[in-house]
């Protein structure tokens, strides 16, 4: 019972070995989370040569209009993407949660598909679709006799659009979750006073879900400004910079880690501040009106309008899933994608070449999956240890450990990478270019996901299960081995996958930490995009996706359907 956990400080681990193990875990957290961030701040305030205290790095980082402009571009991009996502997600979320719109299961699966697509892969699909002259959509448009293409993906608007179609799932998930809790009585009350369905939705239902929507909007904004892949693919050719691409420039010759650190600090501060706002919003407005099951829930009959809403959802999913994947598939199976759809243009050679001929690409596939597996295992072990210590209050400062484990959640991947670079690339550790630095950075980046899931799994197990072992004469380790671990197997497998999958596709962290022998698929994809080799690029993207699907499918019986739910909650 929870009551016991709150009341009882159980007898501590009394052996010295146990105490040492606890200290070791605290030390690992310090190493992975606290020290890199401390180094980041320190480096940003140091002269690179003398180590003396200085603000010069900040002057260098923000001393040029171009650099400041990049920051503004990021903020504007975040704002536009958030607005677009609201426009995409809210009607569809309302339709799925509150109305008799058809095809809901399909819509949910497709939203998950959009969520699961690495944004850079989607961006590549859209380059094939909406390249200003040769993109498929523009080729179709040119049949009308128009001289200029209809879409130009290489533009601020184009970038905002492709980011939005791959990030609206956050808002969708947050909003549907909230809307599903709104009682129909709330809507009935408005109806009885004479409000129609639309007015009720806009004035009653959506405002009730407002804290959740605001929370989702903030996450969307933050994800956008921290994104690296899509801006690198789109913004550089479109000739503008955002914070993340600008940070990459500071890593260019001569590499200036200290300036990059200084430039990254405001990004960190914005993120921290907005997460603070999000917590405050959700804490204050809470889900007061939404608490509990809130009475019965009936679906609103939309009449013919339900087909309109379904059409909108279908269009959205065409844009985010169907069209880009079709374009990618065509390129992956083509000798030259520009030649279009014809039997003579069809080949599996791209796959064969990548997997069996191209050494670097084949190795990047292996790297991605081994690094991700190692990172997921490390993150999970650590999360499990910390989760257990926190749940059982084995240390006086246990809650601090929990907080530290969640902290990377608010650190943009690119900032974490720079922090890791500053802390561990140079001697004495000299982890630069080793697989270890990537594995540790991935483990740190996804530690919060692991922690949130494992501690939920631990909390889901009644401590009495463990106490029953102890009172019968089994020690803590017997309890963990014989009862806790078997009971958590499912939860742990799910949590492991939730770390593993994003780690296989992580780009922004890898971009700054990879070495010649530690390139991951994501980095490889970016390199190939530089050479414009879209056929092999698309094929590599498919290898990534197929491998992920195979892993999830094979793990499905083990983890069951609560996997998806937890993913939505995470």
């Amino acid at each position: 019972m929870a009551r016991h956990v709150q009341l009882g400080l159980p007898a501590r681990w009394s052996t010295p070995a146990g105490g040492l193990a606890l200290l070791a875990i605290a030390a690992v957290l310090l190493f992975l989370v606290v020290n890199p961030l401390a180094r980041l701040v320190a480096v940003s305030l140091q002269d690179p040569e003398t180590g003396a205290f200085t603000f010069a790095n900040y002057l260098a980082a923000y001393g040029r209009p171009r650099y400041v402009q990049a920051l503004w571009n990021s903020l504007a991009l975040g704002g536009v993407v958030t607005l677009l996502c609201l426009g995409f997600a809210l009607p569809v979320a309302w339709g799925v949660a509150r109305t008799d719109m058809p095809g809901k299961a399909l819509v949910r699966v497709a939203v998950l598909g959009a969520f699961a697509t690495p944004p850079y892969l989607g961006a590549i699909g859209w380059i094939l679709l909406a390249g200003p002259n040769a993109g498929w959509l523009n080729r179709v448009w040119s049949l009308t006799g128009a001289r200029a293409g209809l879409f130009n993906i290489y533009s601020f608007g184009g970038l905002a659009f492709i980011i939005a179609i791959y990030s609206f799932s956050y808002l969708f998930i947050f909003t549907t979750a909230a809307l599903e809790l709104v009682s129909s009585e709330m809507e009935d009350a408005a109806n009885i006073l004479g409000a129609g369905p639309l007015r009720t939705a806009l004035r009653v239902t959506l405002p009730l879900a407002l804290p959740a929507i605001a929370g989702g909007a903030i996450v969307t904004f933050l994800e956008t400004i921290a994104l690296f892949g899509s801006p690198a693919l789109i913004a550089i050719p479109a000739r503008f910079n955002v914070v993340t691409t600008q940070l990459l420039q500071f890593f260019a010759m001569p590499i200036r880690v200290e300036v990059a650190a200084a430039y990254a600090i405001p990004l960190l501060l914005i993120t921290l501040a907005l997460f603070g706002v999000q917590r405050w919003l959700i804490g204050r407005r809470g889900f007061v009106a939404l608490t509990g099951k809130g009475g019965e829930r009936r679906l609103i009959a939309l009449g013919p309008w339900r087909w309109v809403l379904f059409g909108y959802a279908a269009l959205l999913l065409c844009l985010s899933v169907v069209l880009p994947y079709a374009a990618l598939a065509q390129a992956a199976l083509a000798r030259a994608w520009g030649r279009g759809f014809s039997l003579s243009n069809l080949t599996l050679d791209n796959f064969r070449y990548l997997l069996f001929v191209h050494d670097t690409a084949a190795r990047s596939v292996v790297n991605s999956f081994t690094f991700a597996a190692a990172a997921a295992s490390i993150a999970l072990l650590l999360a499990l240890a910390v989760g257990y210590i926190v749940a059982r209050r084995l240390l006086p400062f246990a809650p601090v450990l929990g907080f530290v484990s969640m902290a990377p959640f608010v650190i943009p991947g690119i900032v974490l990478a720079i922090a890791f670079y500053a802390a561990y690339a140079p001697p004495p550790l000299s982890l630069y270019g080793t697989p270890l630095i990537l594995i540790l950075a991935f483990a740190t980046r996804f530690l919060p996901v692991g922690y949130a899931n494992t501690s939920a799994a631990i909390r889901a197990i009644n401590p009495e299960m463990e106490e029953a072992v102890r009172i019968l004469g089994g020690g803590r380790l017997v309890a963990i081995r014989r009862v806790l671990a078997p009971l958590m197997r499912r939860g742990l497998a799910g949590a492991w996958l939730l770390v593993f999958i994003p780690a296989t596709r992580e780009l922004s962290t890898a971009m700054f930490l990879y070495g010649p022998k530690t390139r991951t698929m994501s980095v490889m994809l970016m390199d190939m995009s530089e050479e414009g080799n879209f056929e092999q690029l698309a094929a590599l993207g498919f290898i990534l996706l197929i491998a992920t699907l195979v892993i999830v499918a094979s793990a499905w019986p083990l983890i069951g359907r609560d996997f998806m739910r937890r993913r939505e909650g995470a």
Partner: protein
Amino acid sequence: MSKLALRGLTRRFGRVAAVEDVTLELTEGEFVSLLGPSGCGKTTTLRMIAGFIQPSAGTIEMDGRTLSAPGFALAPERRGMSMIFQSYAVWPNMTVGENVAFGLKLRRLSASEIRRRVDAILEVVRLGALRDRYPAELSGGQQQRVALARAIVIEPEVLLLDEPLSNLDAALREEMRGEIRRLHDAFRITTVYVTHDQAEAMVTSDRIVVMNHGRIEQADDPVALYTRPRTRFVAGFVGRTNFLDGTARGDTIAFPGIALPLAGLADSPAPGEKASFSVRPRQIAMHEAPPASDGGCWWIEGRIVERAYLGEQWEYVVQPSNSALRLRVSTPPLLRRAIGQAVWLEIDPRAIARIPPP
């Protein structure tokens, strides 16, 4: 010598004392209940006995050996006790047989001995046929029996039960509390039983310890506890009651609006002394006419102001004439009276319990 002794046991969480100065001794084979409302400290006391919580002050001894003292607690796994939890805590990853055998395996008994003991205990709790089932395939009552078998099979020094029946429905609860007593009669294991349900405590226990705000209010056998509550809290918590608060004046005692003779009271207050009494609704008889003679009883004239039919009995609320008191009276189901009817209440002062004034 006592089997288990708690001496001045105190546990504070921050500034709040959850358990304060609890002293209690159990003899070998005794069944003692800790009874009280939630938050009274009974579960904390039990968990201190188990070793999950260290005391802030006081000691716990078993067979004269100190198990717990401030800054020291023998680990739960080394106390030789067993415990049954509110959630049953039957491990879902093990079969019934494996659950029950677990404690025996930890004691490194031979496989044949384990088998024999598990078979025996499963017969006792009537689960012999379910040995290879998993807990998820059992009903709540069956799971509870597994928990019981698992706890008893190791023949613990002390058996601890933490509200074991609170998750069961009413009928099953009644069945299981009988089962627990039956097992105790069979094995005579020294037992501490935590509950907030007085009926459960009364059915199972040799002795009931009523706790409130972390302290012991009264520790007595069930009959004494009901008939002779020593505190207002105990009187109110164990069964329902009416409180009469008065002051002795000459040879009468004055309650609000009524004066009654002191004669007949077992524990008669001195003149001018305040005195309170607990009168059970069942101890009040209701008549339609005034008595011919008082027969040594108190007679109070009044009027019915509320009534409720509960099936097994009637519940009336009677307001004495010229008084704001409201007395609850239980009568047999056939005794039907109308609201507003004038009645005479009869109370035997020899049978009522004197309690400290408020």
